[in-house]
């Protein structure tokens, strides 16, 4: 009898969680953003039910500020997996007056995204949304349960969380409530990349080195896009970069890199001096930025 490797253990745990989700909920969805964590989730969801099909449709909350590369990847990947894709647009929430556009140089649609998600949950009567959040990402996330109960407003109340013991996941909720499910809770960023390498998962090309025009700001490189305002004093350069996470074009920083494959990413990560969230403008706004957004219904 041989032992399971660290990655195999994480995989077995995530698959256990996905199967519990299928068994305990009526209308679960898998939150798909086209980023590496959601690609892993989708892959695990396919594995968990083989040779049957995964019961989870994908839900993408499209902020309208996505990289075109991510959207193209999303459509390619979804077709390849034979999955059903549901898209809800932040643009629509703004148009309907449900959410108000931020102003400024790097207008973020993070808060607005929560509105669209909560509306989609009500509209589609979803009782579980599976997300790729990991506890190692951020301090507030470190307190998150695997089955995390949200009220009708999508709010997270950290002090009232249910104790989660052994592997006994309590998915019972009242009508109108929903559960956010985090199968990758115990994965680190390094585990994610090692798993991507082991399973040879496809990725958007944004994760690899490419030429791109960026604004240099506070030592970070922000991609030029139709959504950021370029001022005359801005230091704009075209340079070779890659992205460590793929969020919105307005809040995801690039960094100089010539890495073209997953091996290179793993080497770079091992030597890397900053965390993943350090390249996200949305998380740097304040110390409790993530906690506040989660309370409002963000993932």
């Amino acid at each position, binding site marked *: 009898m041989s032992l399971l490797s660290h990655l195999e253990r994480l995989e077995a745990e995530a698959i256990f969680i996905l199967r519990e989700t299928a068994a305990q909920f009526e209308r679960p969805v898998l939150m798909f953003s086209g980023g590496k964590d959601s690609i892993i989730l989708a892959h695990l969801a396919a594995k968990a039910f083989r040779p049957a099909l995964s019961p989870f449709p994908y839900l993408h909350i499209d902020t309208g500020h996505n990289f075109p590369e991510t959207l193209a990847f999303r459509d390619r990947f979804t077709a390849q997996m034979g999955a059903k894709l549901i898209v809800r647009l932040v643009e629509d929430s703004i148009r309907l007056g449900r959410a108000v556009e931020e102003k400024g140089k790097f207008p973020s649609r993070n808060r607005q995204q929560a509105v669209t998600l909560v509306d989609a949950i009500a509209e589609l009567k979803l009782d579980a949304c599976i997300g790729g959040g990991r506890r190692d990402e951020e301090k507030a996330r470190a307190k998150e349960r695997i089955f995390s109960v949200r009220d009708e407003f999508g709010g997270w109340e950290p002090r009232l969380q*249910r104790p989660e013991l052994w592997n006994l996941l309590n998915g019972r909720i009242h009508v109108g409530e929903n559960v956010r499910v985090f199968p990758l809770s115990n994965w680190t960023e390094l585990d994610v990349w090692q798993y991507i390498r082991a399973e040879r998962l496809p990725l958007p090309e944004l994760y690899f080195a490419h030429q791109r025009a960026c604004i240099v700001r506070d030592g970070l490189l922000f991609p030029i896009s139709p959504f950021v305002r370029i001022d005359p004093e801005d230091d704009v350069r075209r340079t070779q970069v890659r992205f460590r996470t793929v969020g919105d074009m307005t809040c995801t920083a690039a960094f100089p890199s010539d890495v073209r494959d997953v091996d290179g990413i793993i080497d770079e990560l091992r030597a890397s001096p900053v965390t993943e969230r350090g390249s996200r403008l949305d998380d740097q706004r304040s110390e409790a930025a993530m906690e506040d957004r989660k309370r409002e219904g963000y993932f």
Partner: protein
Amino acid sequence: MELLRFITCGSVDDGKSTLIGRLLYDSKTLLHDQVAALEQSSAKGGNGLNLALLTDGLRAEREQGITIDVAYKYFATPRRKFIIADTPGHVQYTRNMVTGASTADLAVLLVDAAQGVQEQTRRHAYLASLLRIPHVVLAVNKMDAVDWSQDVYHRIRDEFLALTRASGFSEVHAIPVSALLGDNVVEASTRTPYYDGPPLLRYLEDLEVDRPSDPERGRLPVQLVLRPSDPALQDYRAYAGQVTSGAFRPGDAVVVLPSNIHTTIAGIDRYGEPVTEAFAPMSVAIRLRDDVDVGRGEVIASAKRPLRVGQELRARLCWMAERPLVPRARLLLRHATAASPAIVTAIESVVDVHSFTDQPAPAQLALNEIGKVRIKTARTLAFDTYAEERGTGAFVLVDEASNGTVAAGLIIAEEPAT
């Protein structure tokens, strides 16, 4: 690389959060922006680097300077991967300690050298033994505050060892440390010549974690049935679940409990690919030779070592809700993948928080109290005792009105009639 899950516990202000911060900081697991954020928020307090801020992630925790909820931290050295659960010391958060302990291989119990062993220390040692965490490290912290006194260290160590002699830990290892200054955390200290063991991190890296699972006692609680819609696979039917203990192979004689169906394993598939063996903690799907009707909540078990079956349980219960548990309470019991309405028919005893002995016949179990109870379930369950197997010996109770998880239960054996 092997994985070690551990929990830090002890009384409030003994330095748990600081110790974890020190482990992360000195093992160079912290990244530039985390250090920058730490320095920035420490500066607000004005007392140098505050390592505790690394784990106290909630706004209320930073404002009140205490740990409210379990925080999980991840770090790796070239030798091992670690998952730490930092748990609160306050009495009112004991349920969080139990939560963190339920999946831990080891507990690091802190004692403030200047304060000595406290009621919370004894309580946490008791809980660690109750939840059968096999290994305990006693970290006698704040040695700087007692002038690195050998006497103080030995007195606390000996008191603790005497206290836990009967606790069933396979090993208790004591280390004198200063989380604040870093002595014996990652680097060995020159100020504790009377201690010749390794620093904490080295001890954690080298410890052999024995997971005593009997290979003969195979258990797979069925999560769901896989039945593909593809017409080419219309005869395919497999029972998906995670092996909680032991091992299975094709050809093994098994029994499905509680329905008591005897059959043989036709094949085992792991994510759609056939495998020759499944062992804990693999997630697989088992195909059975006979065309039987098996559903979620049943357990596939080695025929040689079946589980107990019944509608009456005896258990240790840790009560986790504000509203006390009273006899005849109706709740929902979740055990492995099964769920059943249940009635707590009797509260036999409650643990006295000072003497850690069982006091008979309490009127109720209050928040954070632990007692022995009897439970009757509406459905028949298949179970082991917690001492035999964590996976099939543990359960939780859910309040059907609030849906909250209100108790952690450990199944115990019937005492032989005297």
